[in-house]
């Protein structure tokens, strides 16, 4: 019953988020601030992880291709498919559930504990719109982060494969272009769009409705991470089934 209550409360929160709007001039500033906090500040870690995971995927694939009949270009093909289809959209999103999600839950949760959300409500401000709407809009830029992750991941794969001596540069580039299906990119970005909404709203829900003090802010961040990851994985399965099967 509690899960049903929470799901209902989540959708009521979303209704409130898109209810009465905050003044446009104020909202504009908040959106830019959230883009900086949630998107720009995440680029460093996303680039770092993507580059090295791209490299690891390439090395592991290369070390498992012992049969001389299998062309080396398959290394690049495998790295490309892994990165575009799954690594960048899904696993980066799970990492972002930890980084962005805990940022959202703890910032909103702390405002709840410190009565700042009550202060907004007393002033007649739609606190859900003021706090959560700018985060949702900022997260619409999340597909750009994933595009960068894909590019850097493939660059990492090239660096590890070619500079590591596992595959020649020309073979790698051939493999990268082999059997490229452009819909796979569309699929990846559709997934990313849904993941962005999940990443913005589930942690926000856990922060907005949290009760208690500082200790509970920490607990809410952990719970938000767990639930965001669970929903991301389920959504990933559902969207893959709908779009690729």
């Amino acid at each position, binding site marked *: 019953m509690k899960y049903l209550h929470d799901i209902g409360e989540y959708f009521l929160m979303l209704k409130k988020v898109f209810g*009465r709007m905050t003044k446009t*001039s*104020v909202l504009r500033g908040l959106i830019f601030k959230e883009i900086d906090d949630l998107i720009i500040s995440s680029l460093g870690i996303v680039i770092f992880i993507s580059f090295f995971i791209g490299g690891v995927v390439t090395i592991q694939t290369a070390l498992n291709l012992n049969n001389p009949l299998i062309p080396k270009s398959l290394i690049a093909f495998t790295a490309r498919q892994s990165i575009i289809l799954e690594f960048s959209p899904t696993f980066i999103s799970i990492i972002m559930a930890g980084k962005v999600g805990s940022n959202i839950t703890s910032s909103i949760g*702390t405002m709840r504990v410190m*009565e700042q959300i*009550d*202060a907004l409500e*007393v*002033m007649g*401000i739609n606190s859900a719109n003021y706090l959560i709407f700018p985060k949702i809009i900022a997260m619409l830029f999340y597909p750009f982060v994933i595009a960068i992750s894909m590019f850097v991941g493939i660059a990492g794969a090239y660096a590890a494969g070619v500079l590591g001596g596992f595959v020649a540069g020309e073979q790698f580039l051939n493999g990268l272009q082999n059997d490229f299906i452009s819909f796979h990119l569309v699929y990846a970005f559709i997934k990313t769009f849904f993941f962005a909404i999940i990443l913005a709203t589930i942690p926000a829900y856990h922060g907005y409705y949290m009760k208690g003090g500082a200790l509970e802010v920490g607990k809410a961040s952990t719970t938000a991470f767990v639930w965001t990851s669970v929903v991301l994985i389920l959504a990933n399965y559902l969207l893959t089934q709908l779009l690729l099967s």
Partner: protein
Amino acid sequence: MIQVNNLHKSFGEEEILKGINTQFYQGKTNLIIGQSGAGKTVFLKCLLGLFEPTDGTIEYNGQAYSSLDAEKQRDLRQKMGMVFQGSALFDSMTVAENVMFPLRMFTNQKKKVMMDRVDEVLERVDLQPAKAKYPAEISGGMQKRVAIARAIVNKPKYLFCDEPNSGLDPKSAIMIDNLIQEITRENDITTVINTHDMNSVLEIGENIVFLQKGVLAWQGNHTQIFKTENEAVTDFVYSSDLFKKVRDAQLKGL
């Protein structure tokens, strides 16, 4: 003036407020006192419109809040200022930005006009030198004064304070009490203060509402509270020896 008529508030089966009838007067510091669990915070949140009463009405200058449509309720909310127990300042904003916040949200004034008003209000609470500081960089007493400045910057008709001097040293607490009383008189606003602090009761209690287990047990002012025979009030007010001695001295005319 705020008129409360037969106010009931329940959470599930538990009835917190049990038919309160009272008035809070304009230009006066109205205090709500009572033991923990008496229903003071729930009462204050009902007055603020954060809790919807289960039954009864609250009238603000003759307008019942529940009879207003959503837009008029929002308009009325904008005429309310609130000082929270923990100040509830926005950490990411400076003192001046915190005070300017209601003006940015609800007016279309130019930045210079807003800044002039912020300066005026900060001057009033004696915080001009701290205007560029962040809440974390100032003391608890200063944070309370910033909260008061933010509450009055948009010229409210009603000011609500939830334990405004809790956690402050006695000198700062008296300063906050006096500041609230002066602002109430200067601006002729209806101020309602939820407090435990007996110094506040004796210093600025122009209209005191005593709650006991969700019922209004007594109402009067700081002079009358010394003379009341109401046992619940005397038990609460004179629970410390110091106040017993103050009462005895008052009654003896010392």
